[in-house]
Structures are given as C-alpha cells and as structure tokens.
C-alpha cells in the first residue's frame, strides 16, 4: 500500500504541469524522492548471513519472513484469542532451532503446557526442559538467564503482560546467548514498543464450510507487525495441517458419527 501511494505521488510529480515547476512542487518532488530512496534502502537490506530457521510453512518462511529467521532472534507471537494456534506455529520454529543442537526450554508458569503435544511437533524429549516458576518475576528472570546462555537453543514463554523494559533485556540477552527466543503474548501487546526481530500476529479463521471434517487443517492469518529489514503490514493466510494419527480399531467407538450430517438438521432447532 505504501509503495503504491509513493508511486502515485511520484507519477504526479513526474508529470509537470508547467515547464518550470513552482517552489512547492519542487519541494514535494524532493520529499517524495527522498522517501522513495529510503524505502528502497529498506527493501534492499541484505539478508542476514548464516543459517535461517524455518517454520516449514512456505507462506510464512518465504513471503512473510523472506527466507526464515536468524537463529539468534527474539520473535513475538501475538494471539488474538485463546486457542488461536500461535503456540502451535511457534513450536514448529522451536523444533527447527532445537535440531541445530542445544536445549529447548519451555517456561510455563500456568502449569498447563502439555509436552506430548510439543514432542509431536518435533521437540526432542531428551533436550527439552520445562520450567515452572512460581511467579512472573521468576519467569522473567528464568527467560533472561536462558536466553543469555549459549547452551540453550530456544526458549518458549508466554507472558500475558510485560513492561517495556523486559523485552529489551530479552533482546540483549538473545544477542549475547545466540539462541532463539519465542514470546507468546496477547494481541493487546501490539501497541507496546517492539524490541523483537519479528513480531507476528496470529488470527484464527473459521473454516468456510460448516462441518467439513474431511479437511484436518485449520486456517490462520499471520500478520507481520514488525520486522527488522522488512516492510511490516503484510499478511498471509495459511492452512496448518495438524499431525494426526489413525486410531487403532479397538479404540474407535462402535458407531462413528458423521458430524456434518448430524449438525445440519439440528441447527434450525436450537435457539441462538
């Protein structure tokens, strides 16, 4: 959008209304030219050297992140609402970081994290440590310590609230330790100053067809709110296929229902 406005403005300024432009037109042209040069400069920032971590979802890795994320980065995942899929997507990145060696540290001060789900998404059980701090103060301390240590490949932590100073400390710790920091925060945090290398907002989308259980994918829209060296504001819509496993015969109920067939007739009967 921004580039289109700039192009329009540039087109207007490139079409002189008179042979000798007025002073005002001249200054507008210079401002536009300056803006264009600066935007081009942002676009042409060279990609960071070294390996890149990828989520495995092409739309995020290529279109949004320009090839992936540097292993020594702080990434904020903002979730619109509970059950939005931000953590599941972040776990893909955590698994990619863990495969490079080092420990994966999950900071869970609510006691709800379910490690089997993380292991299915690629985390190594032998290299995964779960911290259960008693308070948010301890959680912040633990995240900072782990991020600043080179033995830790990735830290995943959820923070409902953070003051402005803490993410800055995390970012400095990441630069020292060289690991990946994944912070899960509510969408309300998008107004906070961003010290992370990348800030993404995950918005869950309902499936367009009611009761379509054949497709085991979920729809998410990922917004790039902030990123170093890239233009924010872009978003992509993705389909995430969850790892599912066929149930053994003896553990299936005798009568398997077809939810789509069952839902439709009753939809009219139930009061809203």
């Amino acid at each position, binding site marked *: 959008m921004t580039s289109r406005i700039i192009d329009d403005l540039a087109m207007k300024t490139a079409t002189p209304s008179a042979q000798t432009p007025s002073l005002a037109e001249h200054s507008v042209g210079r401002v536009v030219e300056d803006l264009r040069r600066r935007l081009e400069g942002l676009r042409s920032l060279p990609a960071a050297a070294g390996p890149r971590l990828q989520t495995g979802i092409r739309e995020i890795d290529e279109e949004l992140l320009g090839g992936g994320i540097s292993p020594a980065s702080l990434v904020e995942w903002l979730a619109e609402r509970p*059950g939005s899929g931000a953590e*599941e997507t972040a776990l893909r990145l955590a698994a990619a970081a863990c495969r490079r060696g080092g420990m994966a540290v999950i900071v869970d001060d609510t006691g709800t994290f379910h490690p089997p789900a993380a*292991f299915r998404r690629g985390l190594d059980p032998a290299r*995964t440590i779960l*911290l259960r701090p008693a308070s948010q103060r301890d959680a912040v301390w633990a995240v900072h310590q782990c991020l600043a240590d080179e*033995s830790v490949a990735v830290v995943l932590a959820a923070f409902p609230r953070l003051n402005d100073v803490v993410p800055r400390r995390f970012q400095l710790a990441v630069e020292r330790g060289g690991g990946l920091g994944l912070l899960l925060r509510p969408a309300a945090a998008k107004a906070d100053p961003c010290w992370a290398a990348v800030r993404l907002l995950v918005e869950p989308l309902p499936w367009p067809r009611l009761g379509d*259980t054949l497709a085991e994918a979920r729809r998410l829209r990922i917004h790039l709110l902030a990123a170093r060296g890239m233009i924010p504001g872009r978003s992509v819509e993705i389909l995430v296929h969850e790892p599912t*496993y066929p149930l053994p015969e003896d553990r299936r109920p005798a009568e398997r229902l077809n*939810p789509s067939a069952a839902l439709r007739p009753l939809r009219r009967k139930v009061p809203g």
Partner: protein
Amino acid sequence: MTKYTPSIAPDPLDGRALILDLTGLSHLLPSESALVLDILADCEELGTPPVRLAFGDTIGMAGIFAREPEPLTGGAALSPHLSWVFWIPPGRGIAFLRRYPVTALGFRREVAVWCRELGIRTVADFMGIPAGEIAAKFGRDTWRRWEEILGRRADILPPRQPPEEESVTQWLEYPGTSPEALAFCLQRAVELLLLPLAARDRGITRLAVAIHCEDGGKVEENLEFFTPAADPRGILEVIRLRLERRRFPAAVSGARLVAVETAPLIRRSCPMFEELAGERRRTERWGRLAERLAARLGEDRVLQPVLRAEYQPELAWQGVPLFTARKQKRSRRDSPPLPETGPRPTRLYARPIPIAVVAAHPDGPPYRCFYGGRWFSVVRAWGPERIETGWWRGRLTARDYYRTEWEDGSHFWLYRRLQDARWFIHGRFE
C-alpha cells in the same frame, strides 16, 4: 569409636547397636576395664542415652550379649550413662550363651516358630541338635549364622570408610546484617573448602550450607551441582540465588559449608574439531545454568518431561526434577514410544473446566458451547476419540474426546464423560 579399631559397623540385626572388632588389637588397647571407662567417658561427652556394653568371643556373641542382657547376672550399673557392662573371660562365651533363649540367636522368624514347636527353648537345647542336621532342618542360612556365632566360620567386619566430607566454618568478626558481609564470609569459606578438594582433583556435587545467626538460629540449605563444581564464582552464585529469598532471624555471625558429596573433576582433552568443542562447551554451560535455575526457582520446578505409556492425557507424561532425572539417567531411549492417539493440545488443564454443550444428539459431537458468558457455534468437530482406561487404579476414566473448531476459529479439546454425559474443556490448541 574409630580410635579403638578401624573395623566398626552397625549390627545388622539391630541398627541401634555398634560392633567393634578388636581381634588382634589387644596389645594396642588398655585393659578391658580401662577400655570400658574410656568408652563411658566418650559417651558422657557426646551426651548419648544409656548404653549397653558387652564383650564376646565372636561378633555374633557380643551382639547377643549386648542386645539381651536379661538372663545375665554379671552386669552392673556403673553410671547414669551406662546400663550394662558384660564382660566374660575369653573362651567362656559358649558357657554363658547356653542360658539364652533360642530367639536371641537372631534366626529367621520361621526358625523360631519351628524351634518352639519342637520344644527347643534355650540355646542349650539348640546345641543338642547334631551339627549336620541344622542345615537340613532349618536351612543353610541358619546353619551359617550358628557357625558364625560359635566362631567356626569367619565373621568379618569391613573396615569403616571415613566419609569424604570436607567442612569449613567461617566466622565474622562481629555479627552483621549487610549482604556484603555475608558474601565476604561465604567467599572465604568457599575458597577454603575448595583448597583440599583441589589438591585431590575433586569437585563438589552436594553442598550443605548453614548460616549461623546471632541469636543461635541457623538457616540451612542443601545444594546439588549438575557436574563436580570447583569454580568458586559459580558455587557462590548458586548459594546467593538460593539464599536471596531466605529471611534471617538475626544478624549473621558466620557460615558453615560442608561438601557432603564430592566427585573427581572431569578433565578432557581439547577436541580437534570445532563442532565437538562447541557441543562440549554447551553441555558444561548447561550444567551451570541448570544449577542456577534450580537454586533460584527450586529443584522441583526445573523438570524434564518424561513420557509415560498412558492413554489418559493427564497421565501421559511426568515432570521429573532435572537432578533426579540425571541420576536415573533417563533419556529418549528410555522413554516409551508415543501411543497412537489423536491430536493433542499444547495446553492441557489440570482440572478440566465444566462447560454447557448442546450436542447434535445424546452421543453426538458438540454443536454449541457456552463459554465465557456467551454461546459459540462449533463449526467443525473431529472425533470421538474414546478413552476408557484406569479401571485398575480403582477409578474408571471413560471419555469421548472431540477436537472442535469454534465460530471464531479457535480450537478447543472437549470431552464428554460417559458416566454422566457431562461436558468438559480439557485443553486448547494454543
């Protein structure tokens, strides 16, 4: 007691008794009466409760005389700290032993019952049984024990290994309340503690810290180290993290450190390849980080998730404290394979949340859910995944699980309890 003999051990039949093997040491020891008085003085100094002292020809005999003083006539009360002293001339033990009940010999309970049924009441009665029949009638262990008591079979006490404990007590010139004073005291204590260990090329794996306060109170902490620690800065950091939340009842007057457990320091040659060196450096650094995390958060809050072969979701894993897991040497190889199940949420509630659900039909999938003060339509539902398990624990778990997508796109994990058809939210796909 080690000043009398290196062979000293608790009595295997009575954990409260100590056995001292004085065989071959008579020329180094004073007379029996002087020895008794010496031990008595030690007990008085230690403030022990009344003790029973007995001499015997064999280890087994001395134990019997010390444990069972009742039928004796030779005991005498010498002081408030000494109940009985029983001394018999060498070679006369068997004669005294004959008066004892057969139960005093410390045989298995079944043997005691058999003896009673056979009318064998005293040791003298037992001695009437031919030696060759004891093993056949009462078992080889009884025969072996009997031979040891009589001294026909060697009963050797292993020499006592002194515990590898190094300790240091450092006192301040005058009690202080400033953290700097305590830090100085601890630093000095740690340095002094590490000196003898460094000479033996050992590091600390378990450390007991006691901070003495002016009012006589003590603040105690026990620390564990991931790998043998010999770096004073690292040790002090762990102590500081552990103590920073403790309240001291009064001004600090000193600190005592005890290296409860030590281990040889791990020395490795420098690897040729950078990758190996990096991995080794990371492992060492992780050990130090784990120590700091455990010191600040608590050892039971630094967990290694270990999978369990359970279908019930809340029992499918267990958080083992990291230091315990390290001792048990659990690893991925030991973990059972993931059971074949449906998708699992990343967040699982320890207590499932009851929820009002309108289902398509009594056994059907959820259709609408009332949550957070409003109704949500369920756009899609996958399932049911039926889990019926746990009957052997005395509590049957019977649930039909559904992964549901709500109208706002969020995914929750719901189940219907089959016993009463009530619905619960058990997790969310965060």
